């Protein structure tokens, strides 16, 4: 066991636990301590080798361990760094670190279209929350943003590469959950993109989980496309006897009246799916009669939109120049594509 202190809050965790997991254990122990938990955009507990890429979860290790108390020279990715006995970590208590994370958020946003008004992810988007909690009021980026055309990767999934932050989660889903990955990351640097390269459909029983793990609106459910804003739907827990041995059929149904608009996996308080579900449950069972409803789903309404934070008065405009591709996207008759 190792004792670790994050922002002054101490916890004892098994050896090998990462700083991020230790912080989440603190948050689970006492909701009031949730401020010690670093944001994570690419790490996903159930996906092996995930994490380390987005750099939003960086923390400052102010004391390495009891044995070697020297601080670590650079911020470290808390999702990929194991705790040591006696380690002390600053998450929100170090101004330098807060500033560094602020920089990471700004970088993630410079090429993001900010097309939230027409994005299905709005309201449950981790990038919205991240930028609200850790970002600045305005971007200093004034150049044309990188754009990609949205493409269908099969009947059920739409890829908006423009919104992608290259977290690699969907690639890990393809690798670890499906029986053959057909998509990946092509090109390099800031033109790297999630792609199948050739026109290709991602057809697999578990491919729909890519939508659930996507932290932004890059991968969305075509069967739910523009059907409703998520905050106008009523989520209920439900299950069915799913024949697929790898799917337990425990889902969330997002209802409008008695109409099932969308089916997703059940997410924990950190936004991660508790157990992955199959595509039959997700896409084909849109009839309420197919499900046993357990009751209303408790949603942790910390999301920016859910709390109406966007009504806050701002000192300056969100952008120094408007994102060029919002009207552009509309122009491309996106909306016709329902």
């Amino acid at each position, binding site marked *: 066991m190792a004792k670790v202190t994050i922002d002054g809050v101490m916890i004892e965790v098994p050896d090998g636990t990462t700083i991020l997991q230790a912080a989440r254990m603190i948050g689970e122990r006492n909701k009031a301590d949730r401020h010690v938990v670093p944001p994570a955009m690419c790490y996903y507990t159930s996906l092996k080798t995930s994490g380390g890429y987005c750099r939003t979860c960086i923390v400052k290790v102010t004391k390495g361990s009891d044995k070697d108390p020297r601080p670590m020279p650079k911020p470290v990715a808390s999702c990929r760094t194991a705790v040591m006995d006696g380690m002390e970590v600053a998450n929100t208590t170090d101004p330098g670190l807060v500033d560094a994370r602020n920089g990471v958020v700004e*970088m993630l946003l410079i090429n993001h279209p900010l097309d939230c008004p027409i994005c299905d992810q709005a309201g449950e988007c981790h990038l919205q929350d991240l930028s609200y909690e850790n970002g600045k009021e305005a971007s200093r980026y004034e150049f044309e943003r990188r754009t990609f055309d949205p493409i269908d990767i099969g009947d059920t999934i739409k890829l908006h590469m423009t919104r992608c932050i290259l977290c690699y989660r969907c690639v890990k889903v393809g690798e670890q959950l499906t029986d053959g990955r057909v998509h990946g*990351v092509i090109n390099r640097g800031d033109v790297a993109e999630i792609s199948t390269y050739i026109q290709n459909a991602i057809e697999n029983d578990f491919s729909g989980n890519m939508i659930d793990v996507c932290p932004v609106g890059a991968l969305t459910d075509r069967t739910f496309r523009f059907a409703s804003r998520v905050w106008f739907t009523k989520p209920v827990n439900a299950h069915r006897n799913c024949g697929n041995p790898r799917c337990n059929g425990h889902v969330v149904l997002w209802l409008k009246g008695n109409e099932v608009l969308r089916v997703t996996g059940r997410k924990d308080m950190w936004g991660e799916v508790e157990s992955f579900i199959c595509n039959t449950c997700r896409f084909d069972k849109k009839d309420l009669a197919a499900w046993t409803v357990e009751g209303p789903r408790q949603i942790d309404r910390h999301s920016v939109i859910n709390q109406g934070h966007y009504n806050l008065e701002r000192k300056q405009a969100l952008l120094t120049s408007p994102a060029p591709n919002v009207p552009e996207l509309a122009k491309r008759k996106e909306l016709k594509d329902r």
Partner: protein
Amino acid sequence: MGRKLLFEHIDKPGIRGLEGYRANGGYRSVEKALKTLSPEAVLEEVKKSGLRGRGGAGFPTGMKWSFLAKPEGVPRYLVVNADESEPGTFKDRYLMERIPHILIEGMITSSFALGAKVSYIYIRGEYFYVARIMEQAIAEARAAGWLGKNILGSGFDHDIHVQVGAGAYICGEETALLESLEGKRGNPRIKPPFPAVKGLYDCPTVVNNVETIAAVVPIVNDGGEEYAKIGIGKSTGTKLISAGGNIKRPGVYEIDLGVTCDEFINSDEYCGGVDGRAFKAVVPGGSSVPIVPYELFLKTPAGENRLMTYESLSEGGFAQGTMMGSGGFYAYNDAQCIVRSTWNHTRFYHHESCGQCSPCREGTGWMEKVLHRLEHGEGRTEDIDLLWDIQRKIEGNTICPLGDAAAWPVASAIRHFRDEFEYHVTHREKVKDPKHFAREPFRKSAKFATA
């Protein structure tokens, strides 16, 4: 005139072939190591030599080797980093092209010390013709029994393979190199685990630069102590410096660590001074190290002569020093524009960013765009502070050192040449001519005159 350890015989006829190499004392270190020394004894000599990694980081080689994990029944690998891509650096190409057997000899001796039965040379794809030279030399060595089973009857087996890359600076980072060698995209791995524990094919691996491994040959031949007699302090032995830019005599020079910077840049034995104008700035260790004004290259902030050693070059810290890096040395004359050069540097890092982590992926392109705007007469005063802040947000926050390497040239250029950046804002029309300073050199204002 310093001692030549690697280049002693480089001009001898036939040195590129096995026969010529052998006639000049080649493969003696293999004989000595395999017949008279234990692997531990070879490691001990390397430790005693004080040899530091010649690829850029300058990490003590003996210490790196001693970190190598040795679990039972798991193969260990030596991988030679010949991905030489750091702008300004061409010493490894020169060495491999002219005297390929010294690398092979060093690899056999080093592999004996490390217990590696197979080693790889990862050569950047653009050096395809060098890879052919190495392959041919390996074939010669194999035919003569220097490679293969039971070398010199010692019971030690070893073989070497040449692997070519395909154009990616990032593959010079050791874990990206290993990924590439495994047939994947050159994305650096997240550390720990380090290659010494989990490297190539998840096995313990040492990755060393070409020059580092070649230096093992004289170290084993003459003994580590003898090697350590050359140099000053923790900078021991000789170092290959690739010299380019606006100097009279570009080329690769083997210097004793400890030569003064003045001698190196101005004497006819090395760079031979400036090519007809006046020196303005120096990048002594490859594009990633801080650029310094010429005067600050010659003298430390304390006013002493600066020396070509790891320590002396970095004296004054980041604010007033620079680094030895890979020894990719290039000098600027007063026709050159620092803003243009910084834009060029940044375009390079933008082009070479692997795209894995966000600060580097997004930040390098952003800096390039701002620098492009400044250099082309469309900049604003705020751009300079913006650049400063972007590089600060990249440095230290990325998976691998490419982020730092992209940030440092920008930071140092602004630190030392801020007035030149300001000039680009105040003289927008003038700088639209790409040769603006060739026609009329930039003069420092009193405010920025170097002390």
